[in-house]
């Protein structure tokens, strides 16, 4: 796990996320969010979970980001002012970050280097999904179907 790659990906992800949270134009924020997601997928690759990294690109960038951009296109107004910034939110976010940072740095057992592991193949993930995690898999399938039908009903034209 090379430090150079880690630093580059970390800077990219944090810059993209910060831009997504603070830009005023909505579509620029959505595109910076895409950069942040790709950065997180690169982190997954660095950590040796390539399948999750590819699923992250597939689902988050290819589906969620497209949904967000589509919604932005459909709900445009000419007078797009974001009505000021709420400084209370900034204070709360900084406080939460300070708390989390204190908790992480207080735990010395966390500063370990990565132990060498064997590569996690897709075959093992598939076997785990079908044996240990088959009930969560069915539940997620049901959830996705319900979300699909519910989303359609929410935006369907109401028949008079």
């Amino acid at each position, binding site marked *: 796990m090379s430090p150079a790659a880690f630093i580059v990906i970390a800077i990219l992800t944090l810059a993209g996320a910060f831009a997504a949270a603070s830009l005023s134009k909505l*579509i*620029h924020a959505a*595109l910076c969010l*895409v950069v942040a997601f790709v950065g997180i997928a690169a982190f997954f690759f660095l950590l040796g979970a*390539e*399948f999750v990294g*590819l*699923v992250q*690109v*597939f689902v988050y*960038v*290819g*589906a969620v*980001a*497209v949904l967000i*951009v*589509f919604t932005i*296109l459909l709900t445009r107004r000419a007078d797009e002012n974001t009505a000021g910034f709420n400084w209370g939110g900034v204070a709360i976010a900084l406080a939460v970050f300070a708390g989390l940072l204190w908790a992480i740095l207080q735990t010395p057992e966390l500063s370990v280097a990565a132990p060498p592991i064997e*590569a996690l*193949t*897709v*075959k093992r993930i598939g076997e785990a999904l079908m044996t240990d995690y088959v009930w969560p898999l069915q539940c997620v399938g049901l959830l996705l179907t319900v979300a699909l039908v519910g989303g359609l009903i929410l935006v369907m034209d109401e028949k008079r």
Partner: protein
Amino acid sequence: MSDSFDQIFIHAKQWLLGLMPNAPDWVMQIVSSLINISALLGVFMTLFALISVLERKILARIQNRYGPNRVGPFGFLQPVADGIKLLIKEDIVPIRADKIVHFVAPIMIAATAILTLGVIPYGRNMTPFSIDSGILFFFAVGSTTELGVSMAGWGSNNKFSMLGAMRAIAQMVSYELPLIITVLPVVMIVGSLSADAIVAAQEGYVLAGIVPRWFVFTPWGAAAFILFFVSGLVESNRTPFDVPEGESEIVAGHMTEYSGFKYATFFLAEYFGMFAISGLAVTLFLGGWHSPIGVLQFVPSYAWFFLKLAALLFTFIWIRGTLPRMRVDHVMGFAWKFMLPMAFTCIIAAAVWHYQRHGLAGWLWSLAVVAIVYFGLSQLAGTKKRFAPRTYRFAE
């Protein structure tokens, strides 16, 4: 002898890498990747130039006229003339367009199309990036094309562009599902997401060495291949599904406000998408770089791959010259009401075939499953009722 001819590019690359024997490890990795990438880009740029002029000539011959035949021998230097024309055109950007988004959109679409070319095996040991889940990589990167299209539509600040972009995204998203689900039977039978493993599983011959063990020669494979091919037609916005770039309907859709080199980038992206989908279809269904006849195995593997790729590209162009454009709501209905159920049936048929241990009984059972669902779905689509011949009443 035939083995060295087959592996000639691998030996060339190893010779190039051997020129610097005492470089550190990461330099060797970067140089190796760069050689792969430049070889890939060189081959596919040449193929792009060739196909652009071949498409015009083949379309012309279908329409009973000559194609471009002035520039160079039989018109084959036409891409050079086209390239020079597009490069020296003035680059107009609308004054109220979003400059960054307008600039990045064609780059993003072209970049995702080129990235997908990296996981396809072009010959024996000739995959540029051989990763464990290559097929997932292909679809993950290919699905980010929709983002580029929406950026193009929004960045132009033009109502036609926006409507064209929304239509294009709706079409691409609808057909991604059949595209991916038709790949699932192949992955299920092979048991791996790696493109190399899928090609290796199609080696050998059945029926006393005559019929190759390609997946297209099984009933579920043939149905899945046709569905994959049609979904590939839609994903690359080719006729009969080219509503996003229909000139008579929506000017040029999301590409309206682009001129010069950026317009050329959009077409580069479309053709590269065609190459990628055809390459993947050859890998998944047509046996990759294996030869169809046992005696012709001395022909190099990459030659067989490009022959099959050329056959599929010719079919793309042939369909463009033959069929008219489909209406956009028919396109959506076709995807959700016909192709998706057929794609699910292919999975069931493949499971039935595999369960019967690839024998004759398995072949017949899976053929029965596919045929019954196909006839059921076509009765449900009810085309006979809706498109019955019209009866005319003339004034007496």
